[in-house]
């Protein structure tokens, strides 16, 4: 059956072309430095690895585009930046974060679409274990795969952090929804320095995890666990 294409013309309301104020342009010009773009690229590179871990195709071009698109889309008004509310870096980082999260979810959702995949709900249910069934109940059918994947990765990070009490406390804080630096420090009783060190070690653990995933992906099929 061919898909029906709706050819009905819709009259979208006329939108005025994006034209920011002189102050907005000045703020963008001043803040969009080479160092800021490089910081964003580093951030995007790390976030992109998460997309790759979920089965998405990522390369240097994907990383470059994440940064270039976040900034260009701001200049074209596709994403709105209130220069009085937050710095440009924060805005672009938020944009990259949102887009990589979306790409990761999409990668998880489509990586297992095999020809012999269970088609009906009951068949799908039969393939889930107890943990998966519980996640399914908690977060609904649509996000089950994403939730399972996320739980697995989180468990792997915790496993890698075994013995590092500060990183484990950091992860525990994140797991209960404590996200701000000050809140994490308060919950975990960490000094600013201990927080920075723990965050650095967490970053390295994630890097280690990414490298393991890449190494596994490079192994011949028969050797993979």
């Amino acid at each position, binding site marked *: 059956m061919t898909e029906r294409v709706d050819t009905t013309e819709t009259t979208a309301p006329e939108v005025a072309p994006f*034209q*920011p104020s*002189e102050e907005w*342009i000045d703020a*963008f*010009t001043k803040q*969009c430095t*080479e160092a800021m*773009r*490089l*910081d964003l*690229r*580093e*951030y995007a*590179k*790390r*976030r992109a690895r*998460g997309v790759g871990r979920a089965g998405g195709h990522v390369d240097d071009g994907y990383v*470059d585009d994440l*940064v*270039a698109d976040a*900034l*260009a889309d701001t*200049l*074209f008004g596709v994403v709105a930046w209130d220069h009085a509310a937050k710095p440009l870096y924060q805005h672009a980082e938020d944009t990259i*974060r949102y887009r990589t*999260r979306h790409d*990761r979810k999409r990668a998880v959702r489509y990586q297992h679409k095999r020809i012999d995949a269970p088609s009906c709900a009951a068949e799908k249910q039969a393939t889930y274990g107890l943990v998966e069934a519980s*996640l399914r109940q*908690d*977060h609904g059918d649509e*996000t089950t795969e*994403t*939730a*399972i*994947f*996320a*739980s697995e*990765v*989180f468990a792997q*990070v915790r496993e890698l952090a075994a013995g590092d009490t500060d990183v484990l406390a*950091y*992860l525990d804080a*994140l*797991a*209960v*929804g*404590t*996200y*701000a630096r000050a*809140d994490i420090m308060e919950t975990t009783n960490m000094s600013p320095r201990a927080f*920075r060190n723990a*965050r*650095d070690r*967490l*970053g*390295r*653990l*994630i*890097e280690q995890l990414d490298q393991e995933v890449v190494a596994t992906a490079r192994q011949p099929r028969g050797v993979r666990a």
Partner: protein
Amino acid sequence: MSTKKTNPSPDDILDEVSHHAAQAAVARRKSTSQEREWSRSLGVKLDARLAELRRNLTPADPAPEAAKPIRPSTLAMARDAVLAGIAKLISSLEGEVEPGFAYRNHKRLSDDDLRRLYDLLDPTARE
């Protein structure tokens, strides 16, 4: 300001872990010359768009006005009389006439162009 989230989903937690790990990587970033070159190149493209946005802020040129008809009395004047009239007007209006008019090579203007210039400079009321 507290940003605690109640009952975060596994995906929320993973996203937050990844975000914090990425921020840690930014804090210890070391860029390669290739990355710096990429950043400069992106900067050039963004500057072009910023220049376009700045240009759009300047008011558009006013629409050209149709020239007013030449006064009949001026139309009746011969070229030499118009040239003499213009010279007289420019000297009498010294300092008030735009240099574009005052130092124009009038010899290269057509008769009607000279008449229009004369009308433009002549402060007397139009007929």
